[in-house]
């Protein structure tokens, strides 16, 4: 397993965001992490990256402790949800900065060509549109030959053409044996690219497994229906308890 989480709990004061999450991610697969707003998707991803310190539990990335050892991050390429950069730096300078911090060879050119941002390379980031900044964000996370890519809402701000390009790129990376974790609200995209789905609800895993299995389990025709049924089941359970 490339990433393993065991009994991860995270509280922000009284608010329990993750309530005992056990998960494992294997090589050469795309995982989509789904769930309503505030279900703990981003906290889960940030815990793997060491950005959020879990209240209890253990996380290993490529066999190394991911909570206390910062070096495990050399295996991960990360695209945050909000693409904001230092205003007065150019695209080229940010690429150089991240490369110099990571001390790994980077290959941004194919991504720059793919997302057609070559003409923006010498422009300051404050002058770029939200969509272009998102493309830079994706290029920064995918330009290293990492074992794992973690992408938080990667399609936000992207036009349909670039969404398709990204989808094809992720499928290609999967073929190369990379592990890809994606959070998205676009269920259609999750259905198309994911090998496995993780559905989080109120800090607990409601479903984890192959996409087709979820559909047959809930007797649904598409992912949207399947997720709706999962939420409905949960609501019914809660009402039965009351």
């Amino acid at each position, binding site marked *: 397993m490339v990433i393993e989480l065991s009994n991860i709990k995270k509280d*922000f004061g009284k608010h329990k965001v993750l309530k005992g999450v056990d998960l494992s991610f294997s090589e050469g697969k795309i995982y989509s992490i789904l769930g309503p707003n505030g279900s703990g998707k981003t906290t889960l991803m940030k815990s793997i990256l060491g950005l959020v310190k879990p209240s209890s539990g253990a996380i290993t990335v490529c066999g190394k402790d991911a909570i206390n050892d*910062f*070096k495990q991050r050399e295996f991960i390429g990360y695209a945050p949800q909000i693409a*904001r950069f230092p205003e*007065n730096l150019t695209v080229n300078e940010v690429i150089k*900065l991240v490369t110099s*911090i990571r*001390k790994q060879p980077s290959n941004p050119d194919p991504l720059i060509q793919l997302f057609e941002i070559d003409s923006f390379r010498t422009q300051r980031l404050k002058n770029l549109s939200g969509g272009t900044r998102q493309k830079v964000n994706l290029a920064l996370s995918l330009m290293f030959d990492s074992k794992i890519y973690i992408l938080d809402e990667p399609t936000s701000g992207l036009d349909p053409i670039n969404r398709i390009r990204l989808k094809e790129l992720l499928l290609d990376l999967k073929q190369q044996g990379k592990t890809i974790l994606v959070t998205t609200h676009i269920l259609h995209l999750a259905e198309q690219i994911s090998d496995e789905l993780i559905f989080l609800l109120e800090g607990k895993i409601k479903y984890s497994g192959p996409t087709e299995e979820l559909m047959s389990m809930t007797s649904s025709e598409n992912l949207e229906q399947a997720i709706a049924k999962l939420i409905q089941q949960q609501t019914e359970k809660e009402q039965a308890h009351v």
Partner: protein
Amino acid sequence: MFNVFKYVLFDLLRSKWSIVYTLFYVLSSSALLYFANSSTSAVAGLMNIVLFITPLVSLLLGVIYFYQNRDFAELLLAQPIRRTQYFLGNYLGLITALIANLLVGIGLPALLISNETTAFTELSILILSGVLLTLIFSALALLITLLNENRIKGFGYAIIIWLFFAVIYDGLFLMLLLYFNDYPLETFALVGVILNPMDLCRVLILLQLDLSALMGFTGAVFQQYFGSTFGFVTALTSGLVWVALPLAFLIKKGNTKDF
């Protein structure tokens, strides 16, 4: 750390705030050096500007900058870099940019306009005080942004800290001196000055300008104390403690903070 330092420095030196800050010092120091009768009166005038403006700009620019790059911090901290290196890189970048602004803003007009040899020492101590204030209040700015996710609260704290040291502290200090007028207050006055970095820098500059006689009894006490090696070392140490404490707290909090 050096990579983070370099990007913060370049980013800040290119920002319009940085240019405005430098121009402000260029204009005010040129005007004072050009129109004042002597270098001493020019430095005394500049002193008031440096003592109030340097901490205010360090706090506000620091808070604005670190809040602006809050999302980028997430991206960088997700790279294989120690958090301590990241925070120190940010701090060094900010202070280097602000000190460069100060040096150009005061140093350049001084070199071009001032022709008195005595001005050199006086201006040096003024710039040194500005540097010390930049070091202290930039560390406080970084600490404020780390401890407060809410930007409005962060700005509020920055302004309250500045108001406290620039105005409120002196008011309270004077009230206490008046209230306990009948007691020997030399040690209390010295400790009171050392505990406020803005007061500490003011006294150090005034002593250098040989204007301490204007301060009466307290001036004589300060002259006697800060004039000695022990006094100077204490003043310098307390200044450095003011830098080290927020930085140490920042590193401790930064290592456990959730981003």
